């Protein structure tokens, strides 16, 4: 049952990305193109997701433990450091350039568009490089 729930969550996530249009880089880049062929759809994707997660998370957190696990693994940090800002800024540049973020890129892999086949291995390499540089940075706030 716990394996099924994880598989189901992965499938649901991917189907959601496809249905919403997030798995189409042209749609993502059009969302980001305010002064060109702007397509506001992605705001609805984020809105739709948060409308479910906000009350959903609140309900789940009323339990003391998850169904199939001993503890909740939630990020505990509340500080702002340079890595957060630099990392997010870098991520945004890559997201704008390709129209892909990690979920949609992986979901698109079976469709085997040549661009996806370039993007995904490069993304994995970028992640490994970042993990090797993972040292704490000074807080800025």
């Amino acid at each position, binding site marked *: 049952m716990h394996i099924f729930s994880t598989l189901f969550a992965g499938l649901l996530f991917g189907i959601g990305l496809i249905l919403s249009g997030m798995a189409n880089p042209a749609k993502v880049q059009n969302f980001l193109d305010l002064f060109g062929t702007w397509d506001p759809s992605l705001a609805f994707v984020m809105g739709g997701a948060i409308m479910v997660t906000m009350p959903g*998370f609140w309900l789940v957190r009323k339990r003391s433990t998850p169904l199939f696990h001993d503890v909740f693994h939630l990020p505990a940090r509340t500080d702002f450091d340079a890595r957060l800002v630099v990392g*997010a*800024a870098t991520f945004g540049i890559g997201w704008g350039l390709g129209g892909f*973020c990690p979920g949609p890129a992986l979901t698109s892999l079976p469709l085997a568009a040549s661009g996806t086949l*370039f993007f995904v291995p490069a993304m994995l390499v970028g992640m490994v490089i970042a993990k090797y540089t993972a040292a704490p940075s000074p807080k800025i706030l």
Partner: protein
Amino acid sequence: METEFTPLTSLLGGGLIGLSAVVLLAAHGRIAGISGIVSRILPPSIDKAGLPQEIIFLIGLLLAAPLWFALTGAAPVQLVSNNGLLLVIAGLLVGFGSVIGNGCTSGHGVCGISRGSARSIAATMTFMATAFVTVFVLRHVVGG
């Protein structure tokens, strides 16, 4: 190229993404952050305890497009640039940035904001800003 404005399917698809995140938190106490899930199973520090669940989640993600094809009889619509060099650079930046910044569109943008995490709100505003600027430069300064 223009894409059709799809408020309804986008809202619905977003809802499914949200539901997936709720299922993962309820069942396993995990945040559905794709960059986190992927990077945890990569070297140098592989999360051995979470490995099976992370791989199963990713298998589900990879099966979504084939399932979509089986259900609708058509491949998901997408238009991906075939500029290999551009996509390699984009991939490197996305991979590197999401690990350094502890999250991506899903982990910060959906789950983090829903938890009211100040770090996630700051990260989301930052990557949205640089992405808007990047597309502006790409399409209206360099390209056109």
